[in-house]
């Protein structure tokens, strides 16, 4: 058990991301480390799961408050080129879709929600990109918005941890993952810490991967 704790400790601290978080705000960093330990415990152990989940959710709430200025539930305002494209597309839809588009519900959705849901999806899928965590960023975006989070040699362990999670996921852990995914979706994409709410999840999956591969269980 001591060895396992030591392993998680190393994974949590031996990465570039956590030091960047500490540099930004030590309190956010401390919470990220504590969350990582608690989440690993939640994944691996059967005891006190509800209590751990409550503590995790409470700590996430504090973290949300600490970085509240970088969370935007309205997502960013549309850029001029996006508005222009929306106008152009409105013309195509009117031409080709007829009444399917030219009705109150469709027009209302298109004017007020279409861009919002597009951006919501974009943010959601961007945080699901493993390249973001192990290679600084997506290969398409080499040189822009990149910062190293985890060394890429952690990747096989992450995959092992991910497979463990997929096979053994408990409903209760799903609640935490869901909330951290949703919160990360609303973080400003240009935020210098990246999707910080997912730090505990990635760290604990790498840690679990280490445990599963090294201890073969």
């Amino acid at each position, binding site marked *: 058990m001591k060895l396992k704790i030591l392993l998680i400790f190393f994974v949590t601290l031996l990465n570039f991301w956590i030091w960047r978080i500490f540099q930004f705000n030590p309190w956010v960093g401390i919470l990220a480390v504590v969350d990582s330990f608690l989440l690993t415990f939640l994944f691996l152990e059967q005891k006190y799961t509800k209590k751990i989940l409550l503590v995790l959710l409470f700590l996430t709430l504090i973290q949300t408050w600490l970085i509240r200025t970088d969370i935007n539930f309205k997502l960013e305002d549309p850029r001029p080129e996006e508005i222009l494209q929306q106008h*152009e*597309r409105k013309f*195509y*839809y009117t031409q*080709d*879709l007829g009444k399917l588009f030219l009705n109150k519900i469709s027009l209302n959705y298109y004017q007020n929600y279409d861009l919002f849901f*597009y951006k919501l*999806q*974009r943010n*959601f*899928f*961007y945080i*699901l*990109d*493993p*390249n973001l965590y*192990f*290679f600084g960023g*997506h*290969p*398409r975006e080499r040189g822009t918005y990149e910062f190293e989070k985890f060394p*890429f040699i952690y*990747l096989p362990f992450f995959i092992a941890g991910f*497979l463990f999670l*997929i*096979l053994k996921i408990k409903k209760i852990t799903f609640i935490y993952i869901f909330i951290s995914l949703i919160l990360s979706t609303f973080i400003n994409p240009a935020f210098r810490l990246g999707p910080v709410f997912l730090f505990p999840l990635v760290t604990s999956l790498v840690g679990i991967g280490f445990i599963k591969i090294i201890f073969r269980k």
Partner: protein
Amino acid sequence: MKYKIILFFILIIAAFIRFYSLDTIPGGVYYDEASQGYNAYSMLKTGKDEYGKALPVFLRSFGFYASPLYAYLSTIPIFVLGLSIFSTRLISALSGVLLSFLTYQITKKMDVKNNQIIALIASFITAISPWSILFSRGAFEANLALTVFVAGLYFLILSFKNKFYFILASAVLAVSTYAYQSERIVALVFLTVFLAVFWKHYSQSKKIILSAMFLFFIIQLPQFLLLSSKGASIRFAQLSYIDSFTQQTYFLTPFLNNIFIGFNIVQEFFSQYLAYFSPRNLFFDPDTQSIRSIPLLSTFYPWMVLPFFMGIKFLVENKKELLIKILLMILFIAPVPAAAVSDPFSTLRVLPLLWVIGIVISFGIYKILMFIPKIQFKISLSVILVILSLLHLYISYFVLLKHERSKDWGYGYKELVQKLHGESKQIVIEDNNGPAYIEYAFLTKYNPQRLQAQADPKITADYYNFVEFNKDIELDNVEFKSINYLEIEYKDQIVVVDPKAFSKEDADSHRLKLISEIRDKRGEVLFTIYQTSPKKI
């Protein structure tokens, strides 16, 4: 019987989506499509390609070398229907429908509960997947290659019961390497890994295995003999990122420098490899190349991300199942050639991977449906998702792609050819945006013998090694070249220019008279046709 009826309806849907307005959406004909179609036409009429080469092993196409199988097979629809956009795309569209059928046949061989239902879901997912529809509705040789590869896979699975099928499987897999470049690596590596994994099963039938390997080798021989030619490797050499690392100096000590370069190459390879499994690429971001993507739609529908994760669970739970083992092999092997080049997430190069991911999603959908207790809820959820997916597809492909990508797909050339038809004056067409001559040759069904007569003798002499490409060409009274605007007004001729490079003010200063403009579906001017006025000088 009921499964066969459902399969029949799935195939009808697959065919409808692939054949509906096939000749007009995407609008125009893309350069590569025109090349495939015209070369097929040329081979049909003369037995040789546009450069006068009989039975090419790699088909020379603007200085690159495409795989020739698509052009060979296209001679059949072109013979029956004549050279047209429809007949050029037909083989690809048929491949897409056949793929749905093969997907059913393969997945139903799985030894799991409700295998028929899973097979039907997999067939349907293949039928409606955006990647399959996009590549089936264009003359993409990679789409044909995938179907041939999957046919080979089907025979491999059959060979577990009757070993003689292994010979057929090897032959079909060998043929797939003539259909697309990626298959040259994927088919070879896959067959080798397959034999290594299932050697125990086949070790008693050494004669059959040897015959199959011999056949594989014989079919591959023409390609093997050309392995050292520039034609075989030019594409990889142009796209590889290895040079960008080896040209850098990180340390003064060569040993350390080489280690660091090696590390960087390995890191980049895994980064590219991983990108092919990223949910961001699979479910949200379209391919970066406009010709390989649909606006607002990636390779799969966004909702499929959840079944994708559930499908991985199914894969791991049933990892001992024969089909799952085979799918896992393809899953790991298919992205390797694509990950070795710098083009991130090139969908066209990983179609076998996308096909497998479609099946993984089907497993996930099956698992989710099994969670839902009542049949009414299962049906309702399925109907809602199908309607939403088809609506998404219609809006993205049949509305947005038609309008926003018409220029990329070569829209305007048909209209240009119609405008210039019967013109006896000298015509100059500016070809800054691509090899326009092939569009013209394709759309006018230009006599292949006359085009062959224009081929550079160096190409004829060293077809597979002479990679230089000169797109300036003259077909009767039509010249294709970059226009020298200083000389433009001294000849009595019609000039077709790119309005972005030559404005109306430029035309006025050169005393050119506007004859016509050709616009794309958005109203953007694609070509401006002018008449020169040399007598006024």
